[in-house]
């Protein structure tokens, strides 16, 4: 559902953030994207969502090429950015209504989905308050609800667990599993190796814009004589 083919991205014509990288994410997969700070994780996420353009290479999401059908690609994606401080002057309900209208979610479906997701994340009581009064975690939760509101086939989540309380993190992980069970795809970046270990069928490890590893965790552990993911990660990224 996600095809990233020979993508290169350079900032200010000098800093090479991604160096000719390629990977695929198939339907039914949860893929963890792991790497140290400045490795190119957020750049990859931004390229997938059309926020920035690649210098070269081809990006396809849900069968649509991002250059040729940017609107179709954006409709197919549920994106959580790394900064949930957005439209803080709006109330939670107003923000979700905005998202519902932008993604053309039918009225009944919208009401039902907002109610159930807000209930799951324990946000129902706060929805009628301005988002400015929310804590960081609450803002992150409303971004999660907004990203999932239109039932997108592809979830692209940049550090989605940051700021979530354990119950909400658990609920999100459950939702991710349910989503992939329906044949959809989840691609998410994380710093928390335990999350990747428990959730992902596959991980991609990136460093300085190059993919160091792309495969299952079992294979990775086998290759590294059953060492812990933490040690393997440190060894790979500090080489």
């Amino acid at each position: 559902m996600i095809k990233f083919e020979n993508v290169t991205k350079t900032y200010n014509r000098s800093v090479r953030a991604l160096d000719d990288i390629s990977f695929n994410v198939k339907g039914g997969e949860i893929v963890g994207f792991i790497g140290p700070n400045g490795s190119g994780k957020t750049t990859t996420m931004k390229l997938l969502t059309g926020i920035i353009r690649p210098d070269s290479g081809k990006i396809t999401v849900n069968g649509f090429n991002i250059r040729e059908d940017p609107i179709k690609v954006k409709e197919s994606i549920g994106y959580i950015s790394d900064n949930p401080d957005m439209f803080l002057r709006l109330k939670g309900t107003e923000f979700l209504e905005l998202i519902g209208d932008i993604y053309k979610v039918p009225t009944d479906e919208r009401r039902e989905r907002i109610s159930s997701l807000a209930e799951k994340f324990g946000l129902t009581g706060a929805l009628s308050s301005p988002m400015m009064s929310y804590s960081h975690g609450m803002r992150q939760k409303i971004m999660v609800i907004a990203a999932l509101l239109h039932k997108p086939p592809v979830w692209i989540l940049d550090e989605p667990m940051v700021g979530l309380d354990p119950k909400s993190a658990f609920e999100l992980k459950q939702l991710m599993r349910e989503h992939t069970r329906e044949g959809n795809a989840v691609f998410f970046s994380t710093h928390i190796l335990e999350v990747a270990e428990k959730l992902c069928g596959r991980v991609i490890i990136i460093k300085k814009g190059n993919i160091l590893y792309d495969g299952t965790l079992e294979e990775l552990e086998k290759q590294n004589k059953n060492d812990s993911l933490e040690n393997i990660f440190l060894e790979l990224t500090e080489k």
Partner: protein
Amino acid sequence: MKMYLRLVSALIQGVEPSDKEKKRNKIFYIVMAIIAGFGIMLPMTFFVGVIIYSMTGALLPFGTPENGAELFLHLIATFSFIFGLNVIFSVFYFSGDIESLLPLPLRPYQIIGAKFTAALISESVMEWLVLAAALIGYTIGGKMPFYAWLGVIIGTITMPILPLIYCGIICMIVMYFTRFIKNKDTVNKITGLFTFAVIVGIVYTGSLSGFNTDKLIDALSKPDNALLNVMNCIFPTVPLLIRSMGTGSPLELILYLLINAAAVCIFMLLAQVLYLPSVVGIGQGGAKERHSAAEIISKMKRHSTVITCLKKEFRILVRTPAYFTNCVMINFMCPVFVYLAFVIHGQTNFLESFIYGIKSGNRESVLMLVLGITAVSVLVTAINCIASSAITREGKHFAFIKYIPVPYMTQLNVKALISIIFSGSGMILSIVWMGIQLNTGYKFTLFCCLLSLLCVSFATYFGIFMDCINPKLIWDDELNALRGNYNIFFNMAMAIVIEGVLCTGSFLLYKYTPLGVLFIIIIDFVILMLLNAVSYLLCYYKAGRLIEELEG
């Protein structure tokens, strides 16, 4: 001292455009700076200089040459105080850097000193130019001796200090002794309303007294002017500087510097005592839940993308106090001024003859009215900066407009629509009120409204395009998005230059060609239609690409 300088430099870098933003379009900055410099700054400073020069020359025979310059400096100081209040409140108590500065091993006076200096530098660029022009005008007009130039240099640099110190002291005392102002929205609302009330008050009292140049010169020619005496007590540095320039008395200049130094010391002392207890615990303020979420969710309905995005823009502009006072409220000052001008300001010769000219169908007066409406419409749209900050206002969440499945041009049209709604409604109210007062007839009033909307729409799309070229996306406080934003200033300069060319051209056509007023107005109408087409097409073909290239 080293620490203080480092802090000031760090704080100024937070207000100025980032290196990334500067690099983004160096040529754009250079071209715009030249246009702004020659289109606004130089003419304005020259104009101020000439006024003070003439006023000083006119007062010289009465033996009170200093009164004109004194009055002008008091006016500058008063406006600096009024507009500084909001800035100082925001910078001292509600800027994003406070959470980073408070845990550092810094003394309160060091934090306040650095914040004050950064605010002074970023807020006073234009003021320094105007002060320099006024003091030069006074020195030349009053045929002052050579040493007066020392006063020009010292006065230009130091004059903005005292009004901002007043703002700082008032702000710290208010925050220390009151418990009700614990969030920035309240502060912004209070200072916004205060500014609005003071400006309307100044216009109102000026109107009541039937202000005109003869009366002003007459009042200033008297050595004992009541208004100046009161203002001299409020800003004692003004008379000291002006008189020291005239008499060459080093004592008065030293006293001037001493008063400034004493004000700084008192301010620092108060900062040491008052700042920390008043700043701790400040927040954005929690809002209370008014309706149950279930109730709101059950009432949710599907709207078109344009309507929903328009509602979002409207809510953000109205609910964000910095935007409300600077972008929204300013539009409704125009009808207030028109109302005051007609209801109270009946006695001045110029307005009376102008009103008489319109009522009797004098062609020159009609042309002046039409040109005036076009100029004010463009100016109001540029000043309210709803359009020229359309992308800037997105700030750190600029990426949102890129990852939602809505074409960029649709989003830009929504941003244009909100600017046209606010700018246009203020202008239409003013024109309708003016039409009623001048008895111009509904057809002419409607035509003027249409012409005004054309100007608003041109200035809107042009402003949006200008903001797309180089938006200021890095700011930590909404006021920072508007203040110190060169794009807004450049857009204003461009709008003034374009409108200036249109109005001057029309007037020259009227004066020096046999073309009739109606024909000239039709030419203006056609030019405005063309300008609209050009600015819209610029947005249509270029703005989308510019947004796509921005990496946010």
